[in-house]
């Protein structure tokens, strides 16, 4: 898996978005990881620690990972269903459906400054 490169990309993304002054006060990063993102939260956590320690940046920052379930939307029923066992079908009408509205996320949804 590529958790190490993703951990770097968290840091790079934030460095592009916020000034170094702002980042000096950063205490927490909230990451949303969809079940379809192929990212394993425990490995991501380890990778983040490894990168921040070896590159000596963001060491004061806590990474909080939130796992997001797979949800599809059926237009015919106007219904959302949470997918279990990777069977992509509407729970209301039973029709096959892979109109995914969440579950592929791999994004920073929240950052906390002191």
């Amino acid at each position: 898996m590529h958790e190490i490169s993703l951990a770097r990309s968290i840091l790079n993304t934030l460095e592009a978005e916020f000034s170094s002054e702002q980042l000096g006060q950063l205490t927490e990063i909230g990451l949303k990881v969809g079940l379809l993102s192929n990212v394993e939260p425990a490995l991501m956590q380890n990778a983040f620690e490894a990168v921040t320690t070896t590159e000596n940046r963001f060491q004061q920052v806590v990474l909080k990972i939130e796992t997001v379930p797979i949800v599809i939307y059926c237009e015919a029923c106007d219904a959302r269903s949470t997918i279990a066992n990777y069977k992509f079908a509407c729970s209301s009408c039973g029709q096959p459906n892979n109109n995914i509205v969440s579950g592929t996320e791999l994004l920073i949804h929240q950052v906390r400054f002191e």
Partner: protein
Amino acid sequence: MDKAAKSSKTARGTVACDNTTLHLLKANDFVAESIRKRMAENNIMLINITSSAGSGKTTLLQETARRISGKVKMKILVGDLETERDADRLRQTGVDALQIVTGGICHLEAQMIWQAMESLNLDGVELLIVENVGNLVCPASFDLGEDYRVTLLATTEGDDKPKKYPRMFLTSELMLVSKSDLLPYLPFSVEAVVADARDVNPNIDVMQISSTTGEGIDQWCNWLLDKVKEKQEAANVVAAQ
């Protein structure tokens, strides 16, 4: 990026980033869009071929090049962690192939394709095939700007893979059940694998192929030729407007 362009958000408390799309793959997706645009401008059909290691991607592409390189101008980019072996094998069929050595990275990223395109003369090319690193996990998350993603699943791998690696099958338009000549010797149910793949992706097309016996290879080659034509016709429609 200079500081002035950065967010002017107050560095206090909690900042919700929902509107700033801090998507970790956004750099990749940005390059993938540039590739898509360039392919559209040049009417090149771009196919991304994925699978586990050893499912027969290179053998299939050798066979494909032998059959259709006289009918369509094609080139191949092939990714591996190390060695030029696959590109060498492909070149033996007379097709122009370029090796991308990832040096340990488990997937191809859009940036690697973009860079490789610099070394590849794309004049007149109608079909560009990317043979991804053999891996059903990471390559699933990286858009390469392709028109279609094709995933091979060899009968020797077992018929339980679509649900184990759902994202790959979810994002593929076509699944090729490869090494079909070995079916008589293996506890592999094509019916079960198709049912599982369609649980994950109801729209996925399936073909059964064997590069050894030739089963399904014509059907696969025709699919490719149809896609090339489809892109050229779509471009003609745009040009006529």
